[in-house]
């Protein structure tokens, strides 16, 4: 009983600290210019997507390029729920009548979008049940591409490659923030749950965990559906951030950006997902400004498209080579506060599988 309580306290420290970090940065951003606020809103959206992806990838250790599929489902379904019916009728004349007539606010539409993404994830669950490692990576990549092709051609619903316009682009820091905090809390709740604990044990050593009676497939599925739910909500927020959706918005590029944030922050901790999102968002925004050119006090720069991508790629590369655990290196924020209790089974397990490496 007491142990359980300690674990909970120890476990909530990272969430509390991550949330605090997000709050501080959002607060600062609200004082800034309109561009700054927009960047902050985008950061919050990416935060939801990264936390959602983390719930599965971080806890299971299975690489997924497919989570943008859930983002896509969330984004397009939210758009169809929150757009003006008149606009929908004009843009998508072949849409069934009841969808056309649907007109929800963003807050009402997002949970529905999350649930739709969750349904799709149930359909995808055989992938994570049966596949591991490289095969899982390739299969999720293949899934992403085929879904992208479908989105790009399903003119009746997605308007194909032309994309949907006229989604209320009303997302602000204030309306996005609660969703990110909710996502962090949900991720944490999963992480400290018995199921989350078992899944992380299987991440460290699948064979040992299975021999202890952990049903890896079941735990992975649970993580997948929760993670898809959060990603779906992230997608909905993304649609309201962009105001328009094309297949390119939910393609491999977005997957790579989310993975980049996760890896740079630290793939194996919730704080890593949050810190990575903040770090890369800020860096990317600075780079975009440099890239766009203009006068920066004494220095004037010509526009240089490509700089952002080059620097972000180098950041990822150096992280992988020099600090493979990312900024947080697998630790949670505030782990020092609770070191005695958090030096728990998990750390022990990490040591068990620090597999020997041939010279």
């Amino acid at each position: 009983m007491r142990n359980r309580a300690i674990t909970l306290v120890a476990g909530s420290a990272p969430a509390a600290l991550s949330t605090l970090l997000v709050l501080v940065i959002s607060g600062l951003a609200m004082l800034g210019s309109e561009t700054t606020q927009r960047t902050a809103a985008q950061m919050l959206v990416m935060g939801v997507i990264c936390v959602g992806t983390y719930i599965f990838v971080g806890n299971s250790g299975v690489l997924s390029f497919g989570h943008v599929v859930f983002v896509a489902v969330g984004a397009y379904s939210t758009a169809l729920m929150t757009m003006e019916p008149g606009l929908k009728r004009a843009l998508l004349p072949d849409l069934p009548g009841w969808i056309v007539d649907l007109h929800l606010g963003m807050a009402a539409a997002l949970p529905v979008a999350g649930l739709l993404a969750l349904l799709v994830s149930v359909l995808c669950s055989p992938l994570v049940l049966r596949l591991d490692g490289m095969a899982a990576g390739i299969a999720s990549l293949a899934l992403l591409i085929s879904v992208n092709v479908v989105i790009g051609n399903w003119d009746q619903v997605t308007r194909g490659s032309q994309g949907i316009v006229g989604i209320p682009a009303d997302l602000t820091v204030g309306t996005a923030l609660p969703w990110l905090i909710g996502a962090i809390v949900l991720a944490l709740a999963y992480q400290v749950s018995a199921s989350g604990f078992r899944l992380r044990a299987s991440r460290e050593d699948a064979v040992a965990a299975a021999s202890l009676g952990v049903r890896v497939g079941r735990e992975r599925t649970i993580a997948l559906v929760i993670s898809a739910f959060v990603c779906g909500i992230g997608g909905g927020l993304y649609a309201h951030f962009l105001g328009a959706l094309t297949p390119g918005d939910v393609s491999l590029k977005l997957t790579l950006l989310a993975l980049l944030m996760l890896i740079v922050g630290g793939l194996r901790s919730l704080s890593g997902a949050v810190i990575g999102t903040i770090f890369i968002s800020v860096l990317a925004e600075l780079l975009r400004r440099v890239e766009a050119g203009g006068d920066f006090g004494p220095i004037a720069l010509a526009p240089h498209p490509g700089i952002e991508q080059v620097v972000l790629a180098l950041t990822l590369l150096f992280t992988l080579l020099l600090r493979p655990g990312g900024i947080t290196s697998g630790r949670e924020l505030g782990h020092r506060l609770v070191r005695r209790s958090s030096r728990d089974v998990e750390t022990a397990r990490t040591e068990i599988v620090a597999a020997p490496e041939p010279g």
Partner: protein
Amino acid sequence: MTLLEIADLHISYGPVDAVRGVTLDVEKGGVVAIVGPNGAGKTSILSAVQGLVRTRSGTIRLRGAEITDWSPERRARAGIAFVPESRGIFGSLSIAENLSLAACALAEKATAAAQIERSLELFPVLADRLNQRASVLSGGERQQLAIGRALVSSPDLLVLDEPSLGLAPVILDGLFASLAALRDEGRTILVVEQNVSRAVRLADHVYSLRGGLLERLENPQDLVGDPAFRAKHLGME
């Protein structure tokens, strides 16, 4: 002269301490055998000599030079040849290709053909089947190929992990006769062997490894004769 010196070697796999401070010298031209129960850490020591596992602490020296941080290929080129428990046969390569592979550790490539010829004389079964894929070989034949291949690189130190494993008695006789021949030729051999009577007959020195700790046996013959002694060093039987 001491060919191989292992000093205070520690090997861990996570929290499992497999080898806990092993010190062992192998003289040039000598044969050292290690016996011990399953899981004692025998394979770990041999793998560390070839550089296939990371050591936690301790040093390994070959002819006085420290090789602890050397890559496996560098050790092979410096004269160590390893026959692992699993034999390490390349099933998709032909028998001839398996043999020729070891020639890349030879200082003088020109002698490769002669070396291969010698191994084939030692293990004539291989000679008739040079162009077959190694995956078709039986367990005993694989073992002969593995040892024959190790000899192609003309190693100063031959490291063998359980050479008798899974071999029929008749083949065993041949195998140990050839190991004895190698010994008499002046080769240095470090061998892990469960077949105690043969190990005792072959080796100059016998060590017992239990729970990652090494102990020199003054009277290794007792392993054959004394059931209590046997049980102590080889585990319950």
